């Protein structure tokens, strides 16, 4: 298991190679990328920041939890920080296991828990020059 916060572009293929092995019949990868619209607004870029000491520890803990839930799975996760443009990958996670079910389930567990628990924040920069912090707990008007 390896979890890291990085500032360089993410390379999902490198993560796949890192977890792969002759005993792993299944490898899976999740890549999250900066989207061009959010809440109907045109997003130009997103600035990611973190409470780095805690975020790295929390990510590593989540990967360990996944390893306990899905015995035999190997996971690596990298979260990119800094200013990312539309299409840039902000997170990449790779999972490998003897069988596809555990690889996919562990991957899903890892990305869901990372989104809920790891202290990372994003400030969206919009095409009109404005910006705002993203608050996933905010109730959207209907």
């Amino acid at each position, binding site marked *: 298991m390896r979890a890291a916060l990085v500032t360089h572009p993410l390379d999902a293929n490198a993560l796949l190679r890192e977890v792969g092995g002759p005993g792993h019949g299944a490898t899976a990868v999740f890549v999250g990328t900066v989207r061009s619209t959010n809440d109907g607004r045109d997003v130009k870029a997103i600035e990611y*920041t973190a409470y780095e000491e*805690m975020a790295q520890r929390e990510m590593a803990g989540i990967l360990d939890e996944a390893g306990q839930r899905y015995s035999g799975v190997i996971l690596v996760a990298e979260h990119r920080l800094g200013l990312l443009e539309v299409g840039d990958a902000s*997170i990449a996670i790779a999972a490998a296991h003897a069988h596809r079910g555990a690889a996919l389930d562990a991957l899903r567990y890892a990305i869901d828990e990372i*989104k809920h*628990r790891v202290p990372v924040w994003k400030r969206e920069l919009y095409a009109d020059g404005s910006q705002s912090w993203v608050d996933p707990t905010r109730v959207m008007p209907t």
Partner: protein
Amino acid sequence: MLITVRFFASYADSLGLDQTQLTLDAGSSVTDVLASVAQMPGAHALHARPLVAVNHVYADPATLLGPGDEVAVIPPVAGG
């Protein structure tokens, strides 16, 4: 005892600082830190019961603090 309090993202913007130090009585808890923070200029923009971590681990408001502890007041996380 001296406690370091850290703020991030929207909370740091609202308060105008990312770190401060508080002198609290022995036996103080996270609740006491949040009460002090609530008196700071700009604190109205913080959630009523924000997420808190003590020494890099999520903690509930009743958590007792020790000298030198680092308390982080954490806005809603948005990683991934």
